[in-house]
């Protein structure tokens, strides 16, 4: 399958909006966990950080990312790289903050 059939990084990010944090009804994109997306040949490489190094959901999130992105046309392989960039509430998007506020989490 040619590279022209692969999704763009923007389309990959859009798909990742459907991957929710297992503890909060906020996508990993809005939570600010996605730190990079690359598309090469039939492979998508996603760089993720987590809210804490002890986050109990790391494996679940990685599996959910794999599962969702493999549904995209042309994608045969998904690489999830855990990077160790700091995370804080300032990384949450305005949309994510609105959802959290509605739940009483500020």
């Amino acid at each position, binding site marked *: 399958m040619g590279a022209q059939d692969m999704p763009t990084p923007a389309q990959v990010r859009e798909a990742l909006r459907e991957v929710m944090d297992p503890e909060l009804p906020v996508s990993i994109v809005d939570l600010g966990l996605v730190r990079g997306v690359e598309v090469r040949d039939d492979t998508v490489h996603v760089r993720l950080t987590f809210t804490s*190094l*002890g986050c*109990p959901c790391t494996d679940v999130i990685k599996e959910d990312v794999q599962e969702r992105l493999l549904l995209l046309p042309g994608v045969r392989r998904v690489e999830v790289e855990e990077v*160790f960039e*700091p995370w804080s509430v300032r990384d949450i998007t305005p949309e994510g903050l609105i959802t959290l506020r509605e739940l009483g989490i500020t």
Partner: protein
Amino acid sequence: MPGDWTENDAALAALVNLVVVLADNKYYLGRRLSEWVAGAPSLEEGVSAAAIVQEELGHARVLYPLLEELPFPHRPQPLEREQDRQRRYAVSYVDSPWPAWPHAVAALALIDTAITTMLEHLSGSSYEALARRVGRILHEESFHMAYAEGRVRSLCETEAGRRLLQEQVDVLLPEMLLWFGPPGEAGVEALRSEGLVAGDNEAWRQSYLGRVAPLLLEVGVRLPLGLQWDLAHRRWEWAELPWERWNRLQRRLEKAAVRQ
């Protein structure tokens, strides 16, 4: 992947040892503290302890995979369960469950702070995979230090509490001073020569004491080993440390031999 320093056998061996020592101490500190989450004096302290446990185990989780990456033939196995490996690279203070809360307070104040002191000297390491993880760990550790200081102050509000903490400081602080290793340690010199670590054994020990000793003195805990600040030389001084009981590979204090 690591750079040219992987050709330096002495540096590589010391680095593997350093990684497993850091990871094992984080692992066992988390395990021991987890046993006190429900036994902390207050609900608030218990909840905070639970968060610290999660992070300490998380720090071990991201350090252990470095052992797989380093090209060294005799790499210790990462720990998932305590019985996964017989040889422990953690201080003896975390060998067994702690019988009382002051043990947990002493460990947070003295062990966690020692590890953090060491990590601060690794944040610019030429081993980038380690340096990246260290940056994130230190970011999380600032809360641990504030928590530990708060628990030390809280415990020492009563004479009984201060006495209990004193007993633990007397036991643990000497082991933590040993933990930084003898001056001029060969493996450390190899690490320094490759830019893998900053500082040296004595600088780390002084930096550590500069952080923990003032707090202990402020809350009325006496320093063991005749530890005192030498104003003329602007450094901490102490009596002899029990190097004869120091296990330099596992970086832990061995039990005193029983006399026949």
